[in-house]
């Protein structure tokens, strides 16, 4: 298309749903918009007026009213309106008024129809008014952030460009003032048309390569070359470039394949930016990183509590954008850890430094990086062996109380079973913890197995890493060696069964009479996590995350071929179903829970959930067989 319209195209391409379109689709839309200016206060659409276009706010602001006169929506730059009218008889449903001087790009109805009918993501956006959440693991994978987001979204600035005969010193000076440490080296009129472009003055240039810090180091300093060496001689000439409408996934694969950390991004043949591996990583975690920064800037526990809506927003955003359960679980766990850390920092600032070193231990989903939006606290204090209850416990009791109260205020409910550092039983020196753990492994009973299930997913949240590591190592070496313990854990893990019969019945039902809900945590993710933990212990894995544990298990012959993958898939299906239902709860202003209401589950996803429960059921049957109760009571398994 004409480079003249790049400005229009670029703006559209930065806003959903257009950011998901191909370059060709974008070109077509940008080159066919009709532009209209509306002065502040003027009416853009009247209710019932015939409508022949989708309206895109290029600049300014628009308010859309209900027929009753109530404000329906306030729209800013990059927003759309008029789509309800286009879908319903080509008449405007709601009046729209420019509340600032506004420039509108109108996209004709034929183009709108074509996109709506051929592009599922576009249609979902139009119907839902937001990016699609995806309804199954398949579409989830396709819609995963990295898979769907086009690389141009990461390009935030023009590339720095140097001519190949510029001296290394001059270029280094130029780079010294720049946050980015990479630039493109170009030379006049090369022979590779793929990378040849015309600059603002009409001169032709070929992009030769990307010059990074590493090139200065390896090919200038290390080789003892003079600082006036032309950069063309030190740049790595193997240029790795991607087109601006390729996905982040493709960009990452290109980096891996060529073992580089920088990519040139081209639109057609013109370089429009350089992206770094860090840019991709940062994009994926951006919202949670921002939140974590604000957690650490709070000066009072009350300030932390006020961040609860933002925590939920971050999770909702991630899930809506199609992140997988692991990404969401990791983000929410990182946020939870940050709350704990900040609460401890604030408590220490008030109570003074701790009398002996300690580690604040997190258990359960936070340790596994599998938190969801519904979570209570499971924590404990592991104290240095110099701990003297008489002298020191007042301090740690107060510390624990502050953290526990603070977490409750931040949305992490008190543990009903009292598994918190406020409980003196769970505020002990390391040697006591070692004794606890050994007794649980060596003489399991119902209560001890419950404790093992909770405490054997453990992670250091704050303080002395070594205290927790000692315990992790103890579990990995001793639990996996005790056949009796594994057998007891296995039997225990069979207490909670998947709702497979129930679900099959539900699935075959013809109408929507069935209103029961399924607790997908109790009947699904929890038993699956228990089961994975047992296999992980058996193979000596020190991983805490269930997916990582499955990856470790897969390297052994503990399970049959393909079983670990099937379990991994099942865990993803169930975790996502749970997360998505929690998002739905939040959107419908209910308190999120672990129940999924079948009526909210689309048919395709229902089939996947059924399959996941079936895989869990099969795996449970295998568990009983794999870890039988050893005859003659408790025995150590020989090595």
């Amino acid at each position, binding site marked *: 298309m004409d480079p003249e319209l790049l400005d229009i195209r670029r*703006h559209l391409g930065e806003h959903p749903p257009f950011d998901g379109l191909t370059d060709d689709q974008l070109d077509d839309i940008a080159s066919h918009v*009709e*532009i209209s200016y509306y002065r502040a206060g003027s009416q853009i659409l009247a209710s019932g007026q015939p409508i022949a276009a989708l309206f895109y706010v290029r600049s300014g602001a628009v308010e859309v009213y209900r027929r009753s006169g109530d404000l329906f929506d306030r729209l800013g730059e990059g927003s759309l309106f008029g789509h309800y009218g286009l879908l319903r008889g080509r008449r405007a449903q709601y009046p729209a008024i420019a509340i600032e001087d506004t*420039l509108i790009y109108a996209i004709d109805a034929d183009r709108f129809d074509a996109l709506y009918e051929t592009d599922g993501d576009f249609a979902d956006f139009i119907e839902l008014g937001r990016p699609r959440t995806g309804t199954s693991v398949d579409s989830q994978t396709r819609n995963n952030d990295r898979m769907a987001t086009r690389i141009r979204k990461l390009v935030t600035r023009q590339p720095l460009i140097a001519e190949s005969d510029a001296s290394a010193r001059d270029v280094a000076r130029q780079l010294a003032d720049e946050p980015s440490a990479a630039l493109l080296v170009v030379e006049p009129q090369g022979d590779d048309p793929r990378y040849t472009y015309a600059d603002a003055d*009409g001169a032709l240039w070929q992009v030769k390569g990307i010059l990074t810090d590493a090139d200065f180091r390896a090919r200038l300093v290390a080789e003892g070359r003079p600082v006036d060496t032309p950069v063309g001689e030190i740049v790595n000439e193997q240029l790795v470039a991607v087109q601006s409408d390729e996905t982040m996934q493709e960009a990452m694969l290109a980096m891996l394949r060529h073992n580089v950390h920088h990519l040139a991004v081209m639109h057609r043949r013109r370089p429009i930016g350089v992206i770094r591996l860090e840019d991709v990583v940062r994009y994926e975690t951006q919202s949670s990183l921002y939140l974590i920064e604000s957690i650490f800037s709070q000066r009072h526990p009350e300030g932390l509590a006020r961040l609860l809506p933002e925590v939920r927003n971050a999770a909702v955003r991630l899930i809506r954008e199609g992140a997988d359960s692991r990404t969401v679980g990791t983000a929410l766990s990182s946020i939870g850890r940050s709350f704990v850390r900040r609460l401890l920092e604030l408590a220490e600032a008030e109570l003074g430094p701790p009398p002996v070193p300690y580690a604040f231990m997190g258990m359960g989903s936070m340790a596994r990086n599998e938190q969801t939006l519904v979570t209570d606290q499971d924590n404990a204090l592991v104290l240095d062996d110099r701990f003297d209850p008489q002298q020191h416990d007042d301090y740690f009791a107060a510390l624990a109380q502050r953290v526990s109260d603070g977490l409750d205020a931040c949305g992490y409910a008190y543990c009903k079973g009292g598994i918190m550092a406020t409980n003196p039983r769970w505020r002990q020196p390391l040697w006591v913890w070692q004794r606890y753990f050994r007794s649980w492994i060596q003489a399991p009973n119902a209560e001890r197995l419950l404790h093992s299930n909770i405490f054997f997913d453990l992670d250091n949240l704050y303080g002395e890493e070594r205290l927790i590591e000692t315990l992790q190592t103890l579990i990995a070496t001793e639990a996996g060696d005790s056949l009796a313990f594994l057998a007891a854990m296995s039997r225990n893990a069979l207490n909670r069964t998947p709702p497979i019969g129930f679900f099959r019945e539900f699935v075959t039902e013809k109408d929507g009479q069935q209103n029961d809900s399924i607790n997908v945590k109790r009947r699904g993710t929890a038993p699956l996590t228990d089961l994975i933990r047992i296999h992980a212990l058996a193979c000596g894995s020190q991983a805490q995350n269930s997916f990582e544990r499955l990856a470790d298990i897969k390297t052994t012959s503990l399970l049959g071929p393909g079983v670990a993958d099937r379990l991994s898939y099942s865990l993803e299906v169930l975790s996502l179903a749970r997360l998505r239902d929690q998002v739905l709860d939040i959107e419908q202003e209910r308190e999120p829970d672990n129940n999924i209401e079948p009526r909210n589950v689309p048919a395709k996803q229902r089939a996947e959930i059924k399959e996941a429960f079936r895989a869990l059921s099969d795996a449970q049957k295998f568990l009983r067989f794999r870890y039988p109760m050893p005859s003659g009571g408790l025995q150590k398994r020989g090595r």
Partner: protein
Amino acid sequence: MRLKADPHARWHDWLQEMARRADTPALRDFYAAFPDNPEAAIGDTPLVAIDLETSGLDPRQHGILSVGVVPFTLNAIAVARRRHWILRPPRGFSGESVAYHHITHSEVEQAPDLADVLPEILAELQGRLPVVHYHPVERRFLDRAVRERTGSVFRFPLIDTMEIEAKRHRRRWRLRLRRLLRRSPASIRLNDSRIRYGLPPYEGHQAVLDAIGTAELLQAQIQHHYSRSTPVGQLWV
């Protein structure tokens, strides 16, 4: 305020005379179809925004490098109907020495002379009132270029969005502004005006985008300072 005694009558007579005298059919049609009724409402008048990229500011020394046009009305700017011509630089200019955007050497070598595309350009303008930003450039360059190739004068009323901006200021201020602006590059003048109406900055210096930007600016100016029924004779220069 304007110096012309009766600009309305002047343009009407002039356009009729030109239609009669023009040698080339395309020029004749252009003049004959020109919307020359000064009482016509701006809101009912078909418009066309024109922007030229030139190799300098002096039509005697410099040439037209590209022409961008976009037809529009006060309601809508039809981006799909935009046209853009790259022209072979006039004698005395090498492709390397001139500065302009997004035009490659091979495009320049294959580019037509204005004479080759003049009928096409005139067809786009026909029946529409031209709108430009800072009219001395467009008027003088087009007149000279057409005159060199056809022998006919090429001069017609047009709306100048910069003139409209300038009119809003007191005379002294206006003179100062114009003196100041004349030394600045065109795109900055256009964007400065646009900013006052909440229009987004476009990365300028491309004929089509500047034409679109000019059309947007006129839509904004009419809504802010005039009305749809303002007679065109009050706006054109």
